[in-house]
């Protein structure tokens, strides 16, 4: 636990601080409008898909891998949903079918990375293009929008009289599951171990390849789930659904203090980071900041997320040296 505390004393603290600044900024510049329940609802629903995909991606990045194909799996899911719906399938059948398809898409990533030993960055850039291409093959440039009302109502609706959007409730449930797995189970510890030092993890008996393979499968399935949410939330299945979303998801995970080199990170940091991204975007739009500036802000956050942790680490290192205290390097797994 002390490991968690020291980690929180580093980058995650900055994320929380930035989040508070964003909230303060929104509250002082837009006041009531920003703090209204309706606005909370739009902040949370805007980040639904990013949030859902960020969960498994956190695990992947902690394991020192990456999956950039997630947004394309989301798009492929939307396209296949539209296609199957047009071919008379019942929605109750389509949802499990596309989740399986997402898992298979993830499995292909997993096989290429773990069995053929290819770098996940290259593999998933490839499948990023491939799955998006498949989405266009499946649905072309048409949009399927006549999904049943009860499903689209769910996508746009709020949970039991609150202003919390339904998809975000789904996220909370999933976040608890992923949080428990990553931080409270042996599998989670194994993921940290192989991210910190794959070789060492393998020699200590962790089945690195098998765990990595399943991480990709889960990521594919979750990206697919996000695709289902997306299609319902916008009542529209198109092949270009979620283009470029992978950037935001990676930004959120890194901004949340997960090390791009693996082995470090906490899901709570990632959750703070997604709230930060959503709040900041919302506060800026409320202030009529133009879309170009918004893109620059997202880009800067991504840069900051890569720069920030390494800078804070160096600052900490410098402080430690200055004090003359040189604690033995602790293994990342506790």
């Amino acid at each position, binding site marked *: 636990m002390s490991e968690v505390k020291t980690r929180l004393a580093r980058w995650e603290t900055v994320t929380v601080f930035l989040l508070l600044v964003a909230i303060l900024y929104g509250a002082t510049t837009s006041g009531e409008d920003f703090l209204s329940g309706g606005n909370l609802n739009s902040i949370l629903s805007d980040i639904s898909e990013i949030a859902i995909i960020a969960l498994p991606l956190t695990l992947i990045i902690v394991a020192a891998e990456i999956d950039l194909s997630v947004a394309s799996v989301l798009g492929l899911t939307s396209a296949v949903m539209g296609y199957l719906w047009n071919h008379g399938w019942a929605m109750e059948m389509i949802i499990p079918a596309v989740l399986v398809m997402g898992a298979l898409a993830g499995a292909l990533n997993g096989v290429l990375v773990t069995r053929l030993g290819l770098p996940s960055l290259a593999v998933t850039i490839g499948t990023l293009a491939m799955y998006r291409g498949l989405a266009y093959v499946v649905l072309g440039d048409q949009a399927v929008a006549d999904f049943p009302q009860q499903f689209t109502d769910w996508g746009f609706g709020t949970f039991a009289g609150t202003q919390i959007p339904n998809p975000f409730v789904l996220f909370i449930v999933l976040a608890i599951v992923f949080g428990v797995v990553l931080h409270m189970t042996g599998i989670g510890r194994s993921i940290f171990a192989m991210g910190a030092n794959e070789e060492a993890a393998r020699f200590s008996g962790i089945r690195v390849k098998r765990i990595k393979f399943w991480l990709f499968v889960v990521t594919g399935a979750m990206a697919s789930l996000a695709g289902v949410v997306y299609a319902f939330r916008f009542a*529209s299945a198109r092949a270009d659904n979620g283009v470029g979303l992978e950037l935001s998801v990676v930004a959120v995970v890194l901004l949340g203090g997960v090390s791009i080199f693996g082995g470090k990170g906490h899901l709570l940091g990632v959750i703070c980071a997604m709230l930060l991204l959503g709040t900041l975007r919302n506060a800026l739009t409320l202030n009529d900041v133009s879309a170009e500036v918004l893109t620059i802000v997202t880009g800067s956050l991504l840069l900051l997320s890569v720069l920030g942790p390494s800078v804070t680490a160096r600052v900490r290192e410098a402080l430690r040296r200055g004090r003359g205290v040189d604690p033995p390097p602790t293994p990342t797994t506790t």
Partner: protein
Amino acid sequence: MAIRNKAFAALALTSLLGVAACGSTKEDTQKEAAATPAATEEGGAAAGGGEIKEGLKIAFLPKQINNPYFTISDKGGEDAVNAVKGEYKRVGPSDTAASSQVSYINTLTTQKQDAIVISANDANAVVPALQKAKAAGIKVVTYDSDTAPEGRDLFINQAAAEDLGRSQVQLLAKQIGPEGGEIAILSATPNATNQNTWIEFMEDELKKPEYSKFKLVKIAYGNDDDQKSFEETQGLLQAYPDLKGIISPTTVGIAAAARYLQGSDAKGKVKLTGLGTPNQLRDFVKDGTIEGFELWDPGKLGYLAGYAAAALASGTITGAEGEKFTAGDLGEREVGKNGEVLLGPPTVFDANNIDDFDF
């Protein structure tokens, strides 16, 4: 009243199906969709009246903010909003993804704008957010690209299919002259809905006695692909050496055809017209490859949309068929079927006026 009876029958049928069906399939929703319009027709033609209020907050939400077409249309909108002493504002995404307008709609709702004027990137993706805006008392006007009817109060339609179809024939006939001759059409894809509707009206227009000397010899399809359209133009000229004119009702087609004509002997002899944008065709007009082509004026489109939004937000109209409102320089406009307001006949661009337009 026949319509209403049918609608009731459809409603009854749907509810029966709803009980019978165990899963939710496409057929169910299609029938539901068939049944719903009846409900929206209920709103009677409430008589308009009253003045346009001052200080209305009217926000324009184009498909994309850096698109020159929308820069012009929204400038027109700004003029209109300023003319009614409203507060103009323009926000929008920098990409055209289906969903990127939704957060802007939510923000505008939070900001309690009086009206949102939107050109939808996706006819359906924005509807739930717009319905939320409408529930909060915000009036919604669509321009250029409509949403599903339940998402908006009025649609400002720039391209009445009949006007566009017929006027292209009229324009070409004027350029060729009374002696007539063989003409061809270079369309987009064989199943492009817009183009096919326009072509139907073109064919109908050609049946009129004044076009008796004109003969439509071929409808070619360039698939809205530059290369294919270029080759199809070449093919037309080879197959019909006496061809007098080509109509290309697609911006990709007309540009490709113009490029082919520009480099061939047929330049200036074979007349070319159709739908295009001034920036894309300026050089061809100046060097005589094209005499004139047409498109709606996006500035007027935005202008009309701005006035429509002001009238709705002031409560002088509700969006029901038959209501009238005054749209500044454009004069009085009437709300047509399905809450549509027509912009009117397209604008012809030629050497005299093309430099006044930048889009």
